[in-house]
C-alpha cells in the first residue's frame, strides 16, 4: 500500500474500513485506531495518541470525533473532514438500509440475538482500549492512582464525567502527574 503518497486517501481507506468493523461504537475501535495511526502509518506518536484521546474526551459531541483529531494531524482540515465522513458514512448507510428493511419485516428476534452475542465482544474491545491508552498515559504511580480514583468515582457515583476530566487536568497542570 503506497498510502503515504496521498494521506487523505489513506485516511478514507483506513477509517472507511474500520467503520464497518467498529462493533460496539467508537470507544471499541480505539485499539484499531492506535494500531493504524501509530504502528502502521506512523501518523502519531504514542504520546500524541494519548493527547488526542484526552482532547476528544474533553470536547462535546459523539466519541467518534477522535478520528477528526487524527485526520487533522495527518492532513489538516481536509484530513479532519475526510476521516470523519469515512468513519461515519459506511455504517450510517448500512443503518439506514437495515432499519428500512426491519421496518417492513418486523422480526425483532435477530437484532436481540446479535446484540447479546456482541456485548461481550464490545466490552472486551473497550477494556483493550483502556489498556492501550493507559500504557501511554499512566507512566507514574500517581497517574495510575488518578485513573483508579476516576474509575471508582464514575462507577460508584453519578458525578458528571466532565468534572472528573477537569480534576485530572488540574492535577496535571499542577505538575502532580
Amino acid at each position, binding site marked *: 500500500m503506497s498510502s503515504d503518497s496521498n494521506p487523505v486517501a489513506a485516511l478514507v481507506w483506513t477509517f472507511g*474500513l*474500520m467503520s*464497518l*468493523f*467498529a*462493533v460496539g461504537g*467508537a470507544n471499541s475501535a480505539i485499539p*484499531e485506531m492506535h494500531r493504524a495511526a501509530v*504502528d502502521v502509518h506512523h501518523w502519531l506518536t504514542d504520546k500524541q495518541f*494519548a*493527547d488526542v484521546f*484526552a*482532547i476528544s*474526551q*474533553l*470536547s*462535546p*459531541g*459523539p*466519541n*467518534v470525533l477522535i478520528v*477528526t483529531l487524527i485526520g*487533522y*494531524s495527518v492532513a489538516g482540515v481536509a484530513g*479532519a473532514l475526510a476521516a470523519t465522513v469515512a468513519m*461515519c458514512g459506511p*455504517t*450510517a448507510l*448500512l*443503518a*439506514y438500509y*437495515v*432499519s428500512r428493511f426491519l421496518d417492513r419485516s418486523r422480526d425483532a428476534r435477530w437484532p436481540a*440475538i446479535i*446484540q447479546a452475542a456482541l456485548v*461481550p*465482544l464490545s*466490552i472486551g*474491545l473497550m*477494556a*483493550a*482500549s483502556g489498556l*492501550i491508552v493507559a500504557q*501511554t*498515559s499512566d507512566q507514574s504511580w500517581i497517574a495510575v492512582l*488518578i*485513573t483508579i480514583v*476516576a*474509575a471508582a*468515582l464514575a462507577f460508584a457515583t453519578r458525578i*458528571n*464525567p*466532565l468534572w*472528573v*476530566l477537569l480534576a*485530572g487536568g488540574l492535577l*496535571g*497542570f499542577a*505538575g*502532580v502527574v
Partner: protein
Amino acid sequence: MPPESPPVAAPAPDASAPSPPHQPGLLELFLAFAKMSLAGFGGVLVWARRSIVEQHRWMTAEEFNETFALCHFLPGPNIVNLSVVFGSRFRGVAGGLAAFAGLVGPPMVIATVLAALYARYGDIDVLRRTLAGVACAAVGLLFAVVFKMMMPLLKRRDVTGLVILAAVFVAIGLIRWPLQIVLLVAIPLSLAVTILTRRMVKA
C-alpha cells in the same frame, strides 16, 4: 466526549407517552441534534433520549429503545447511526442527512479548532502536563464504563460471555492482533454460543 452510558442498562420505558403529534422539519432535525450533541459532554445518548422522548415527544420511550437497540447492534458509532435512522424515518434521506449534519457538524468544527490549537501549542510543557492529567482521568472513565457493562454478565454468571470478553481483550489489547481478524473469528463463535445457550434454556 466521555464514553456513552452502557446500552445494556437502558432506562425502563416511561409510562406510555402519547404518539408523536408533530413531524419535525429538516431545520428542526438539524438544530435538535446539534443541541444534544453540543450538550453531550456526558455522552450524547442521555441527551438524545431527553430531547427526542421527553422534550419534543417525537418518539415514545419504547420506540426510542427499539431504535437504539438496532443502532447498537450495527457497527460504527451508535449515536451517529441513530441520527440517520431517526432523521430518515421522518423526512427520508434528506432528514437523515440533516440529523447527521447536526450531530456531527458543530462538534466537528470545535474538534478541528482544538486540533489546530494542539498542533500549534501541543509542545508547550504546561499543556502537555495538563493533557496528560486529563488522559489519566479519561482512561479511568473508560474503565468505569467497562465495569458497568460487565456487571450484568457477572450477575448472570455468564461464564462463556466472560471467557469471550477476556479472549478479545487479550487478542486486541495484549497481543495487538488486527481488529478484523479477531472479529471474523469472535463474532461467529459468540453468535453460535448465544444461539446454543438460548436453545438449551428453552429446552
